[in-house]
C-alpha cells in the first residue's frame, strides 16, 4: 500500500527531472550573483575532475536531453546511496536487538 505511494512520489521526482529541470532558469543563483556583484566569483576553482559538471552529460549536444539524462542518473544514484546508507545503519544495529524482537 505504502510502497505504491512511494513509487508514485519517486515517479514525480522523475517527471520533475524530465519536464521541469531542463527549462529551469539559467540565471546565477543567489550566491553566484552576489559573488559576481562583489567580484569574488573569479576565486572559484574548478574541481580536480569532472563527471557531469553543470548537470550536462559530455558528448550529448542537446542541452535539454543532457540535463534530463544527468538528472535521471542523479535521482537514481541518490535513492541508491541514501537507501544503501540506511540499510548499513540498520544492519549495524540489528545485532544488538535480536534478543528483544519476538
Amino acid at each position, binding site marked *: 500500500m505504502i510502497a505504491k505511494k512511494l513509487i508514485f512520489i519517486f515517479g514525480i521526482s522523475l517527471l520533475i527531472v524530465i519536464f521541469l529541470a531542463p527549462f529551469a532558469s539559467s540565471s546565477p543563483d543567489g550566491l553566484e550573483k552576489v559573488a559576481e556583484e562583489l567580484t569574488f566569483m573569479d576565486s572559484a576553482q574548478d574541481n580536480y575532475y569532472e563527471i557531469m559538471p553543470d548537470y550536462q552529460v559530455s558528448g550529448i549536444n542537446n542541452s535539454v536531453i543532457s540535463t534530463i539524462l544527468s538528472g535521471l542518473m542523479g535521482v537514481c544514484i541518490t535513492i541508491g546511496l541514501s537507501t544503501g546508507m*540506511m540499510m548499513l545503519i540498520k544492519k549495524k544495529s540489528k545485532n544488538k536487538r535480536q534478543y528483544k524482537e519476538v
Partner: protein
Amino acid sequence: MHIPDGFLDVKTCIATATVSVSSIGYTVGRLKNTLKDQDIPKIGVISAFIFAAQMVNFPVGIGTSGHLVGATLATLLLGPLQAIIALTSVVAIQAFVFQDGGIMALGANLMNMAIIPVILTYFLNRILITKRYEKIKIVFLGWISVVSMAILVSIQLSLSGTYELGSVLAFMVFWHMIIGIGEGVITCVAYNFIRNFMGHNNLAKEVV
C-alpha cells in the same frame, strides 16, 4: 547556495567539515537506535525527490535564480535525524558527481544545507505550536532556513577573507530573503501534498 572550491580558505573548510562530520556521526549513532525497516524506502524516495527539486531553478528578480534546498521539507516529512542523512546524500552526490559545490567546501555545504537548517526547522517547529496557522508556519520555517543559510555562508566567506562581512551579508541576506519565500511556499505546498497523499500516520512522528 553551493559553495565552489576557492571561496573558502583551508581553516574554514576544516572547521566546517569538523562540524559536519561530527553532526553526521552523531546522527548515525542515534539512528541506529531509532531507525525502523519501514523508514528506509521513505528516506530514499524523499532524498530522490529533493535532488530532483533542487535542479529546478526559478527566476528571482532579473538576472538571479533560486532553487529549493528542501531541508525544511525533509525535516517535516522525516524528522531531523533522517532528514540530515537524506540531505547529506543529496549534497554529497551533487559535489562528487555533478561538481555542484566544491570538494574542499563540502563540509561547509553540508553544514549549511544538510545540518543547520534541519536542526533549526526541528526546534522552531516544536516551539511554534499552531494548528490554525500551520501553513504560514511552514512558509516561515522554509524562509528562515534559507535566510539562516545565507548568514552562515556570509560568515564563512568573511572568515576566509574572501570578502568583508558587512557587504556580503547584506547582499546574501537580501537575495535569500526573496528566494526564501519561494522555498517556504514550495515547502508548504509539497509538504501538504505529500502528507495528504501518504496519509498522516505514515510520516515521521518526531522520533529523535
